[in-house]
C-alpha cells in the first residue's frame, strides 16, 4: 500500500509549464550570448561571459529538462562527480602548457620566442644569434 504514496512523486516531476519557462529562458540566453559576441569584449572577458552564460543554460537543462531537480542524491552525485573530472581535465593540461619552458611548446605557438616564431611563420631560416 505504501507504493501508492510513491506513485504521485514520480508523476509530479513532469510540468509542461516548467518546460515552457525553461525553453523561453534558453532561447533568451542564446540570443543574449549571440548578441554579446558581436561587441568584442577584450581579452579573457569575452570567454568568461560566454562560458558563464553557457553554464547557466547547461544548469537549466540538467536541472529541469533532465529532472535532476527532483532526482534522489545518487543520480545527482554522478553528474557532479563527472564535472569535478571535467574541471581537472581542462585546467591541468592548460596549467601545464602555460607554465612550461617556452621551447617545450610548439615553435610557432604564441608562447614561443618571437624571433623563432617569426622565422617559422615567414618561412625563413632563424636568425643566427641575437
Amino acid at each position, binding site marked *: 500500500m505504501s*507504493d501508492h504514496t*510513491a*506513485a504521485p512523486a*514520480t*508523476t509530479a516531476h*513532469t*510540468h*509542461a509549464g516548467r*518546460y*515552457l519557462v*525553461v*525553453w523561453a529562458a*534558453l*532561447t533568451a540566453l*542564446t540570443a543574449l*550570448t*549571440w548578441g554579446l*559576441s558581436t561587441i568584442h569584449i577584450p581579452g579573457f572577458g*569575452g*570567454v568568461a561571459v*560566454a*562560458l558563464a*552564460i*553557457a553554464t547557466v*543554460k*547547461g544548469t537549466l*537543462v*540538467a536541472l*529541469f*529538462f*533532465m*529532472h535532476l531537480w527532483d*532526482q*534522489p542524491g*545518487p*543520480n545527482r552525485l*554522478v*553528474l557532479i*562527480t*563527472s*564535472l569535478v*573530472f*571535467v574541471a581537472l*581535465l*581542462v585546467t591541468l*593540461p*592548460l596549467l601545464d*602548457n*602555460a607554465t612550461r619552458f617556452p621551447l617545450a*611548446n*610548439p615553435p*610557432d*605557438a*604564441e*608562447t614561443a620566442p618571437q624571433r623563432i*616564431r617569426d622565422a*617559422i*611563420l615567414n618561412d625563413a631560416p632563424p636568425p643566427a644569434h641575437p
Partner: protein
Amino acid sequence: MHSAVAHHFESLEKQGQAQRLGMWLFLATEVLLFTALFAAYGVYRYLYTDAFSQASRSLETWMGGVNTFVLVTSSFTVAMGLDAVVKGKNRRTGLLFGLSILLGCVFMVLKGFEYRHHFLHAELPGPFYGGPIAGSGGSMFFSLYFLITGLHAFHVLVGMTVLGVIGARTWLGRYGAEHHVPVELAGLYWHLVDLIWIFVFPLIYLI
C-alpha cells in the same frame, strides 16, 4: 500486473531508479569523452589564440546560432513528449518525438551546408588545411572543429535513432503512464546532446 518489472526488482519504482542511475553513469562517460576534446581545444586555443579567433570569425555564426535554437527547441519537444506519456497520451508522445527528429534533421542539414562551405574553402583538418592562416594554428582549429562537431553530429544521429525507436514503441502502446522510464531515458540522451552543443556553440563560434 507489472510485466515490465524484471524478476530481480521488487517494484517498477525501484527498477526505474536503477535504470536512471545506470543512464546517468553512461551520460557521465559521455561528458568525459567530450571533455577530452574540450581540454585539447583549451590548450591549443591558449597556444594559438590569434589563429583560433581568426578561424572562429571565418565561421558562419548565424548557422551555429540557428542550430542552437533548433536543438534547444527539440529538447523542449522531447520534454513535452515525456509529459504526454506520463499523462497517458501515447500518440502525442510519438508525434512530439517525431517533431524532435525533424528538428534533428534541420540541425544536420545546416551542419552539412557548413561542412560543404569548409570543404570548398580548403578549411580541412591537419595537413589538408589550405586556408589563409599561417602556421599550424589554422589546421589545429579545424582539426578540433571537425572532431568536436563531428562527434557531436554522430551523437545527434544516434539520438534521432533512439527517439525514433522509443517514439514508435510509445505510439504502439509499449510504454504508458506507469511504465514511462524508457521514454525518460531516451529524453535524457537527447538532452545531453543538447547540453554539449550549448558549450560547443560559444567555444567554437563566439569566442
